[in-house]
C-alpha cells in the first residue's frame, strides 16, 4: 500500500490522484462543449463596467 500502513491515509493519497484524474477526464470529455456564446447583450455593458472598476483601482 505505497508504504502507508493506515487505510485512511492511503485512501487520501489515492483519492488525491483519483480526483485529479476525474477532473482531467471531465475536462477532456467536455473540451469542446459549451463554447457557444450564450450570454445576452448585457455582456458588453457588464464588461465596460468591469473595466471601469479595474481602472479606478
Amino acid at each position: 500500500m505505497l508504504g502507508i500502513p493506515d487505510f485512511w491515509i492511503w485512501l487520501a493519497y489515492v483519492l488525491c490522484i483519483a480526483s485529479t484524474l476525474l477532473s482531467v477526464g471531465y475536462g477532456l470529455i467536455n473540451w469542446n462543449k459549451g463554447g457557444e456564446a450564450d450570454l445576452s447583450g448585457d455582456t458588453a455593458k457588464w464588461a465596460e463596467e468591469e473595466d471601469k472598476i479595474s481602472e479606478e483601482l
Partner: protein
Amino acid sequence: MNSVMTLSIVAILYLCAVGYLGFRGYKATQTTADYLVAGRKAHPVVMALSYGATFISTSAIVGFGGAAAVFGMGVLWLTVLNIFVGIFIAFVVFGKRTRRMGVHLQAHTFPELLGRRFNSRFIQASCGLIILIFMPLYASAVLIGIARYIESTFTVDFAVAVTVSSIVVAAYVIAGGLKGVMYTDALQGGIMFVGMIVLIFYTYAQLGGVVDAHKKLDAVPELAASQWEAVFPEVRAAAPEDVADDALLGWFAGIAEELKKTATMDDTQKAAFFESLASAKAVGAILKAHPELANQLVVAKLSKGGFQGWTRMPKKGSPMLYTLITSIIMGVGLGVLAQPQLAVRFMTVKSDQELHRAVLVGSVFILSMTGVAFTAGALSNAWFVMPEHGGKVAVASVPGGNIDSIIPAFINGALPKWFGLLFMLTLLSAAMSTLSSQFHTMGTAIGRDFFEKGLLGTKGGGGTVLITRLGIVLGLVATVVLCFVLPEGIIAAATAIFFGLCAAAFLPAYMGALFWKGMTKAGAIASVCAGFFFGFFWIMFIQMPKATLPALLSNYLLGKPTLLPEPIFGIHWNWVEALFVALPLSAVVAVVVSLMTKREPDEHLALCFGGIGRKAEK
C-alpha cells in the same frame, strides 16, 4: 547585510519580471470588454493558473505544509477536497451559474451578486463589511507565510522580513497589481507549478523513492522510542526515586519544558531557577548529550492529543482528530466555495467551455500545490530525523517549535541552494497573486459594496474611488499589524477561521441565490446574519484554536479558555471549528425563513435565472 542585499535584488528582479510580463499580457488582452465582447479568447491554461494562483497562497504551502509536519499525511484529505470541491464542484456546479447570473444582474463583486439577487442593499453592504473587517486576518496569514520563509532563508529578523514583504506587496499594489490581469496571475501560477514539482521530486529522491520515503516516515515514532530506551538508565539515575519507571517520561518532559524558559532568563534568574529545581541541571545535561531525545518528547506530547504517527490518522475522539477534520480539512475544504475573491473569477469567463477546460488544468495545478506541500511537510520529519540533518523531528528542528518555520527550514536544509531562490519566487508568486485579489476584494468591499451601493444606494463619483483606495491602505496596514500581533504557528488556524466564517455567513445564501428560486430576501438576510454572528460568537467564546489556544474573548473578558469546557452528547464542542455549527444553523435559517416569507417577484426571478435552468444542465 549580504543576505538582505540578495533578498532585495531578487525581490526587485522578480517585481520587474512580473511587472513587464504582466504589462505585456495586459496589452495583449487589453480590456475585459475586448475579451468578453470582441471575441478574444483566454487560454484555458491561463484561466486555470490564474484561478489556482489566487486560490493557493503561502498560507497553503508554508502554513498548511507546516501543519502537515505535525498532523502527518492525514492533511492530504484537504487536498482531496481542494481538488474535488475547490475545483470540480466550484467550476462545474457553482461556476457556470455564477457566470450567467453575474452578467444578468450586472454584478461585479460577490456581495453585489448576493445583494442584487435578493434585491437587498443591506446584504451587499453587510457582506462588504464582513469581508473588509475579516479579510486582513487571511491576508496576514499569507504575508506571514512569505515572511517566515525570508526570515529562515536570509537569517533576518521576522520584523525585517515582514517589513520587506510589506514593501514588496505595497510596490506591487501601487504598480497596478490590483488590476487582476489574468496573465500576471498565470505567470505566477507557472512559477509556482515548477517550484512545487521540483520540491516533490527532490523530497522523494532524498528519501529513497515514494514507498521507501513513506516507510521511513512511518518508522520515526519507533525510532524515537528506541532512542528513549537507550538513554533510559541515565534518566532513571537522575530522577528522584519516587518517580515510577512508567512515569519517567512525563517527569522528564515536564522538566524539559521548564528548561525552555531559561532561554529568556538572565544569569541571576537562571541561578535561582536551577536552585529551585534540583533535577533541572541533570536533565539539561542529558538533553545536551542526547539531543535526539527531543523526538520522544515531541511524540509523547503529540500523543497526548491523539497522535499515532505521521502516516496514521489521530486516535478516534481525540482533540487532534477534531482539529484535523473540522478545522484543517473541512474548514478550508468547504470554505473555498464561498470565498469572495474566488467566486468573482467565474464572472470574467466567457463560456462554459473555458470552465470545462480549466477543470483539467486546475486539478493538476492544485495537486501539485497542496498535494506536494502536505506530502513534503509530513515527509520532512523523515529527513530531519537523520543524524546528518540534526537528528530531530521537524517541529523540534525549528526555533521555538514554530510550525510556520518548518517548510522554510526544510527547503533551506534539504534542497540545493539554487532551489532556495526559486522557491522564494514560488512563494512570492503565491503571496502576490492571492494578496492582490484580497486587496482588490477589500477595496471594492468598502468602496462599491458598503459605501456606494450599500450606504448611498447610488452610483458614486470620485468619492467612492477615494474610499476604495483608503480601504486598501487601511487593509494593508491592518494586515501588517496583525502579522506582529498574531501568535506563532498561526497561519493554518487564521486561514481556517476566515474560510469557516465566510462559509457560515455566505454559503447558504450563495447556494440559494444560484439554485433555489424560493429563497427570499428575508431568508438570505437571516441566513447571513445567523451564520456570521453565531460563527463569530463561536470563534470568540467557544472554539479553542488548535484545541489548545484559548477562545479570544472568553479568555479576555471572562478569564476562561472556553465557555464549553465539558463534552455535550459526547462531543468536545470547544475543539470543533465554527463552520461545523454555524453553517448548518445558517442553512436551516435560510430554508425556514424563506418558506415563511413571500417569494421574490416572478419578473425579478426571470431576470436572475434567465435561461439558467436550461443551459446550466447542458
